[in-house]
């Protein structure tokens, strides 16, 4: 992070409100202590995030005194874009990828921190720590710069930018262990509690957004569950769990059989879909 602040003119941190973002924020506080975090946070708000996420965001960011920029693709929202109308692929494209690229361009940011980790998904396993994006924000996985030792190449041409992934070498368990040892606040959705959901395949889907349709035979019910990964409420399933503390979550992960992104519907719309999204500009 210090390397980026030293080498780039306008860095920004993409703040997704999730556990990885919480860790990233703590690392930023530490890296520049006793000074303040020398860059703003950017949240791409699809307006379909869980209410608890937004409450947490506003409270926590104010508490630590960071500067927050919220960007929404209001045009697409006004057109009624939502996953059940246009499909998850188009919805993500408009509300996340396009919105992110617009916000980065509007802020003229040349470096953007993200909390992505290589252990999350196959194409992310090949991501660099300093990952180059062309002027359209797109990723070319075949033409990546080699990264040796800890020497990071920060040279870019006008219009180009980099995405920076300080947590590249962390695993999900590392993240939770760090949250535990540092007592970092996270969104309460990660902890098990009875929540009203519908059972859809293996996922438990929240009915927070009024447009989520009930399939034939589906009945909202109260189930003890938690989120392993946070996204938009219609597209992020909860898992059945009793883990209501960080140590219980870590114990659950050690025994887990499924990866955290399994219930992220958007990863599974076609084989290799994360790579395609990343090439277009997604994280």
């Amino acid at each position, binding site marked *: 992070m*210090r390397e980026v602040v030293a080498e780039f003119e306008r860095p920004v941190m993409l703040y997704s409100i999730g556990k990885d973002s919480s860790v990233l924020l703590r690392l930023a506080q530490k890296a520049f202590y006793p000074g303040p975090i020398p860059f703003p946070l950017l949240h791409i708000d699809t307006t379909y995030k869980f209410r608890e996420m937004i409450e947490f965001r506003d409270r926590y960011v104010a508490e630590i005194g960071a500067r927050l920029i919220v960007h929404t693709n209001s045009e697409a929202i006004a057109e009624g874009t939502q996953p059940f109308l246009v499909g998850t692929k188009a919805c993500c494209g408009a509300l996340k990828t396009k919105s992110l690229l617009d916000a980065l361009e509007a802020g003229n940011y040349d470096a953007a921190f993200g909390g992505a980790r290589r252990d999350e998904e196959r194409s992310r396993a090949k991501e660099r720590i300093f990952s180059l994006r062309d002027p359209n924000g797109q990723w070319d996985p*075949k033409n990546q*710069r080699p990264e*040796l030792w*800890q020497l990071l190449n920060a040279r870019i*041409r006008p219009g180009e930018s980099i995405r920076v992934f300080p947590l590249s070498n962390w695993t999900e368990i590392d993240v939770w262990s760090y949250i535990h040892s540092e007592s970092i606040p996270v969104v309460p959705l990660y902890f098990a509690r009875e929540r009203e959901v519908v059972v859809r395949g293996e996922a438990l889907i929240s009915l927070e957004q009024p447009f989520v349709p009930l399939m034939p035979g589906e009945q909202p019910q109260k189930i003890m569950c938690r989120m392993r990964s946070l996204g938009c409420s219609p597209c992020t399933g909860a898992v059945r769990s009793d883990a209501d503390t960080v140590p219980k979550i870590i114990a659950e992960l050690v025994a887990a059989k499924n990866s955290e992104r399994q219930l992220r519907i958007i990863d599974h719309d076609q084989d*290799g879909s994360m790579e395609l999204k990343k090439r277009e500009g997604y994280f």
Partner: protein
Amino acid sequence: MSGLLRICTAGSVDDGKSTLIGRLLYDSRAVYEDQLHSVQKASRNRTAGPIDFSLFTDGLRAEREQGITIDVAYRYFATARRKFILADTPGHEQYTRNMATGASTADVAILLVDARHGVRVQSRRHAQIARLLGIRDYVLAVNKMDLIDFDRTVFEDIVDEFDRILPNANLHPIPISALHGDNVITRSERTPWFDGMSLLQFLETVQVDRDVSGKPFRMPVQLVLRPTHEFRGYAGQILSGMVRPGDLVSAWPGGRSTRVKRIVTWDGDLEVASAGQSVTLTLEDEVDISRGDLLSVGEIEVGQRFRADVVWMDERPLDPGRVYLLKHTTKTVTAEVDHALVLNQIGSVGIQTARPIIFDRYAENRGTGSFILIDPATNFTSGAGMIAEPIRERSGAAASRPSAAERLARVARSAGNDADAVEAVRKALEELLS
């Protein structure tokens, strides 16, 4: 992260590297069920067996379509005894640079050889790159033993040959079958003549010498933190050694010495900090220090000329007539190299930098002995270098060093026509002045 082991893998195309890693991840349960289902689904679309283990690691579509690994993929797994970060590096010749990337941060290299083919040019080359990057511990995994009926003689011949390729290295040979799992996680009954450990047992127990805390203190300054007028802190990651408040340190390139006042962190001041930690130091005296300078204890080299082993990673060959950017620790300077190199070539070259850098020999200190070369025209990371030794100026030799004007003239001469020459000189001037 104590107990963490960093591994890189090397081998030729089709030696079964991805299959071996998929097997390690699968059998050590680092593969989650949903990833397994997605791979089983994809396996049915292709012609591989029941489960194609390589699909766990060949993450990019192009790789899955061509059936080869084209980029470094990082994998993370843990057993009850240890955590592992594994860099799966490609065997295909045109991607040798990725091998160097994987090896640059690894403690142990797994060299994979197909028992049927023996030691091939690629295996030899990869072993040499790993050696050059300073790896001391090797696993020689002789794979596809099932296809040669677990023949002991074939195995031993390959081991003998590697002993000659890597003299004085810690070489641990293991006969395996990645596809069937022999000697990967547990010892196989099909190799009764083999009395060593399985691959995973070895990786769980190998002791690697990574004690950089015992070396002299080195900390390149990444950033000067000045949140208030009273506070002036030098932020950086300690590359080697330890530091305590009161220690006498030298600030390079000036070489002025001063004492460490405080080690400031978010969690409070520290009594001691060691290699790997990112800290902020305050000093007793007002010293003019900025990013790219280095705080150190003990002898260190300061100079503009040195010999280095360079791995060339760019399709555009290294051109001795051009000026490159050299990034070393947190400092970037312009540099010229005296030898041409082409993609994937490794050579011992002489380097001259425009401003002095503060360095150690790579063999003594990876952090202060390594650098990258960046092509200023493309910004690509074109070369990776390991400093072998300083070139000392003999008296009078300094006069024979080319001046900036002579170097510009050389840049101009190497251009094909006047327009190119103007452009080349303009760029070189900008680089010299930046």
